[in-house]
């Protein structure tokens, strides 16, 4: 069965293409739970592990939101490309900020 093309007016979305409210609510609860976990971990004394662990949790939250709430799992190529583009710009931001942060100890103006 071919994938429905929602750009065509004669091919509207079916029930199969729409997420169930229960699924979305479950994802919401998971994201909330991860947020609580993240806050609790911030005072758990993880020391050097705190940053990677908490960033990892944040990444999982972002992926869940994008995948379910932003419907990227049902998005066509343009939507996927848009999402990847935004990630690319986040990557640029990190790289260029790190060019400052990682070399600041060597001196600045």
């Amino acid at each position: 069965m071919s994938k429905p093309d929602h750009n065509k007016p004669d091919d509207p979305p079916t029930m199969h293409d729409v997420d169930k409210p229960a699924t979305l609510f479950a994802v919401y609860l998971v994201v909330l739970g991860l947020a609580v976990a993240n806050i609790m971990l911030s005072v758990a004394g993880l020391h050097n592990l705190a940053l990677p662990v908490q960033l990892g949790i944040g990444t999982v939250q972002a992926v869940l939101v994008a995948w379910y709430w932003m419907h990227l799992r049902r998005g066509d190529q343009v939507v996927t490309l848009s999402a990847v583009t935004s990630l690319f710009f986040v990557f640029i931001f990190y790289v260029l900020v790190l060019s400052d942060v990682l070399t600041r100890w060597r001196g600045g103006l």
Partner: protein
Amino acid sequence: MSIVIADEPRTAPPPPEPAVPVRNYLNNNYSVWSWLLTTDHKRIGILYLVSLTLFFTVGGIAAGMVRLNLLSPSGAILTEDQYNRMFTAHGVVMLFLFLIPSIPAVMGNFFIPMMIGAKDLAFPKLNLASWYVFMIGAGFAVWAVLAGGIDTGWTLYPPYSSRYSHTNVTPGVFGVFITGFSSIMTGLNIMVTIHKMRCPGMTWGRMPLFCWALYATSFIQLLGTPVVAITLTLLMVERVAGVGIFDPTIGGDPLLFQHLFWFYSHPAVYIMIVPGMGVVSEIITCFSRKNIFGYKAVAWSSVGIAVVGFLVWSHHMFVAGISYYSAILFSFLTMLVAVPSAIKVFNWTATLYRGSITFQAPMLFTLAFLVLFTVGGVTGVFLATLGTDIHLHDTYFVVAHFHFVMVGGMVLAYMAALHFWWPKMTGRMYSDFWSRASATIIFVGFFLTFVPQFVLGYHGMPRRYPNYPQEFQVYNVLSTAGASVLGFGYLLPGVYLTLSLFFGKKASANPWSATGLEWQTPSPPTLHNFDATPVVVCGPYEYAIAVDQMGRGLPEPPGPGSAGDPASHFGPTGPCGPIYKETEVVG
């Protein structure tokens, strides 16, 4: 391809003037609710126009107060604290409530659907929501700057803004945060509309350059605005809850705020200027009666500016304490953005070359844009260069450079757009004499205001200081005198455009003999823009062969033969000869 048009024009005759419809978007319903609940993109454009005119006035009054105060070395009318609040009010209102939304929200809303042959934007209700969100955010921001004020400057640098300022930072920041969502909504709407709602034949290569510019702008709005939104949220969290994010005394990093803030706020400069560039491309072709030179180069340079604009933000931080290596890297990257900007200027200049130029008000504003934006761009190279920026940083040189780009560039482009499309929006012509007088007065006043500031900055007068040494007074007086002229120049359109609504001559459907689809509708347009979906058969600027995008002939360009029109006195073919030339056909 390149074709040569013979002496005789071989074009289709112009279409008959469309019958003036009984109902248009203005007179369809007069009730207040019909405006407040409208989903018509044209009415929403008008709502934005009225709102932004109000905010421009508020920001302009604040600027006038700042300039008046600087007449005297010790401050003429304001205390030092009042001065801080006044220049912050000017910056916040002008940047967030006028410059950023101006052309996308007013002209983009009104004309993007018409230029691509659509009935409306893709999401009409979202469009109306964007205006309400904007007004709510603007309400917070204006209340914050008028009732007590903010003394941090529009850049809101912490830790002062987050920990120490006792002014209305929180409501002001909250207002700016909210208006950001309006910007995202508008950008999303325009981007989806351009992707999905172009009429048959309107390929990407036939799309007007204004649409390309707005598309690139939407790209920046969608990618950049969420960053500043979260940055401002973090600022509020630190201010309200005392969580250490930016304040180093509680574990924060103030440079992190500057990185995040400028990652949006430098591209925001391109949110302001790129739509203006789109306007210039439309007007310069029309009033030169020539195809745009280098369509693809101009179109892709808009996208190029949008992309490269995201790579240059730290040039605002050269002396803030970033590393040498990062500063060198950003200095180099900043130079890159000059390339697409210069491509545009060169192509516009080449478009003018041997064109049949006429000097109606839109063209005068556009030519002023070319001059002032070029000066602004070239002085930007001084600031991009690491060595000179150390000398010039946070001086009046930066203020002058920024205003040359933003006011000399963007505001004049906005004025050009307003004068170009006013007959279409309102169905009325305005005074030819006074509009040209206004363009000239603004141009002269602008130079008088900001050239002395270059001198002041070079000699070391810092920005945002209410006091200065005696030897700087002459330049400050010159600048304030120029601001008075500039203010008078801005007042004029407020008068003659308003009068035109009541006493102006009725505009024809295509008073400038332009080629775009928006001119194929009556003035003012009907509710759904087009009686039938237009079919595009050629490029957007076929002035050389005098056909519109639907392949129909153009009416005679305005000139002395058409008495009463806001026409040039140089004649229908301009001072440079007949309009038929060797040309490149786009599309």
